[in-house]
């Protein structure tokens, strides 16, 4: 077990050798895990105080001057700097890499004010911005290390709490923009991101007991969406479920729906946070309460299969 935020911290540290990489903090480096880079490279780490809006545009200035800035705070507070990201980063297409940790209701007992459930949706609306939400520390590290080559802005959501490690020794399979098929089955495809990838894998086990074979996909990059993979899955499975610890509106489920409506009209069921705010509770309690557990996903898979023409 490990937290994706630790993967981000490891990734930044591994980027120490690139002299163009600069890290920006907003008084949450201990939490987002940029502190490891800061300790190793104090001269290339800039404390912006508790000032997220300032941080984003300092990043833009650095990017326009040939540096590769990585800025992080809690996912919820990246939202405060949304217009800075929109007008100061995305519009001029400056390669600032923003990381929002503690995303989703899985964040737990801090409560609704700290549980970002809309970050993927809002950043996905910005032209030029790549949006990612990896599911384990290894893939988070690999994706982070690929960012200096990206040449455009990105937003990556990481999670606070520990989840199983999936990709130890499988680093080569991870590439920005390419979904990873974790299980193969022809009855239904479950496309998940972040914490819910693990719930999706459990759901596939539940379904197999009933003789239902599911393809589970880790869609760590939500934008650009791996539409080739989605179309292939639509053809082979004919029914799909999205699963994310994010609002039902506008996230991975929204992205799949937008794509499928104009390519393959197959049944799609969406697992996500219903149109409501979270509250204080343990991570597992929040997933149960919001309808994000494996049994919810399995039920949604059956509903999608039942709707096949």
């Amino acid at each position: 077990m490990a937290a994706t935020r630790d993967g981000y911290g490891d990734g930044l540290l591994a980027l120490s050798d690139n002299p163009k990489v600069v890290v920006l903090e907003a008084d949450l480096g201990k939490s987002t895990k940029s502190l490891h880079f800061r300790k190793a490279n104090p001269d290339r780490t800039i404390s912006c105080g508790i000032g997220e809006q300032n941080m984003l545009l300092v990043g833009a200035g650095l990017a326009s001057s040939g540096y590769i800035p990585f800025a992080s705070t809690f996912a919820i507070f990246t939202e405060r700097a949304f217009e800075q990201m929109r007008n100061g980063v995305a519009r001029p297409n400056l390669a600032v890499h923003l990381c929002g940790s503690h995303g989703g209701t899985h964040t737990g007992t801090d409560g609704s004010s700290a549980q970002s459930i809309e970050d993927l949706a809002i950043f996905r609306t910005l032209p030029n911005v790549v949006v990612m939400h990896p599911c384990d520390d290894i893939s988070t590290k690999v994706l982070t290390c690929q960012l200096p080559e990206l040449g455009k802005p990105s937003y990556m959501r990481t999670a606070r709490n520990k989840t199983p490690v999936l990709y130890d020794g499988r680093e080569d399979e991870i590439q920005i923009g390419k979904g990873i098929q974790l299980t193969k089955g022809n009855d239904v495809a479950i496309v998940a991101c972040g914490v819910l990838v693990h719930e999706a894998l459990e759901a596939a086990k539940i379904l197999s007991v009933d003789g239902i074979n599911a393809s589970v996909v880790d869609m760590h990059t939500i934008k650009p969406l791996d539409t080739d993979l989605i179309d292939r899955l639509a053809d082979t499975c004919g029914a799909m479920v999205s699963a994310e610890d994010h609002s039902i509106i506008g996230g991975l489920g929204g992205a799949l729906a937008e794509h499928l409506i104009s390519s393959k009209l197959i049944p799609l069921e969406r697992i996500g946070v219903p149109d409501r705010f979270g509250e204080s509770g343990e991570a597992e309690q929040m997933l149960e309460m919001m309808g994000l557990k494996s049994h919810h996903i399995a039920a949604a898979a059956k509903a999608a299969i039942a709707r096949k023409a």
Partner: protein
Amino acid sequence: MAGMSIEELENMARDCRAEICKITHRAQAGHPGGSLSEIDILCALYGTRLRVRPEEPKWSDRDRFILSKGHASPGMYALLAKRGFISHDDLESYRVLGGICQGHVDMKWCPGVDFSAGLLGMGLSYGLGCAFAAKLDGSVRNAYVMLGDGELQEGSIWEAAMAAAHHEVGNLKVFVDRNRIQNDDFCEVQMRMFDIPAKWAAFGWAVKVIDGHNMTEIVDAIQWMDSITDKPAVVVANTVKGKGISFMENNPAFHGAAPNDEQLAQALSELGVSA
């Protein structure tokens, strides 16, 4: 309520300190440091000045108290229980699913909470809105806002500060909990703020600097605030993060970490309170 003696206030603050340690210990999470630094001011304000009705928490003409540094909720909950807004048993619901004591103070969940916080930099603007509303109503009520010192780094604080002075909002009263520590480290390391009182003065505010743990000074400062009616007033209270518990004092580690079993026992014995 109004007119508690200095000794009564000090006793209440000591009891609240014990409660802060207990509820963060029970949850094994939360923010004791900033709760312990703010608690003397909260006690003095609620014990001598604030026009509120515990039995009628939504009374429309109440003074407003906005804990903008809403992570320091254990202090607020301890006080609300002392004043009868919530029961002592409610404190057990801190960070528990369905509990009224949410991780960060939340007006939707908890009686006596005037602003849903946990998002630094927002409470002053909200308080300004409440103060405007009081003026429009022709009411004598005030809006009091408690800010963290790290929180002053948010630009929106200074947008609100400028607007409040421009509009001569004399019923807006602010405390800055100057405990010199923020999340990751000391403010001096994270973002120096230089002369904080001078900054507020330059923005057009009436400013007073006090020792935020000296009950007499706090009560006097609250009265001083009442004497300022033509402009907003701010009290910069020099405090100690973790005040009252030796191993928490001035220790950034206890910004957002709960005491363990032994630490709780030590904390309660230092306070002279039984478990």
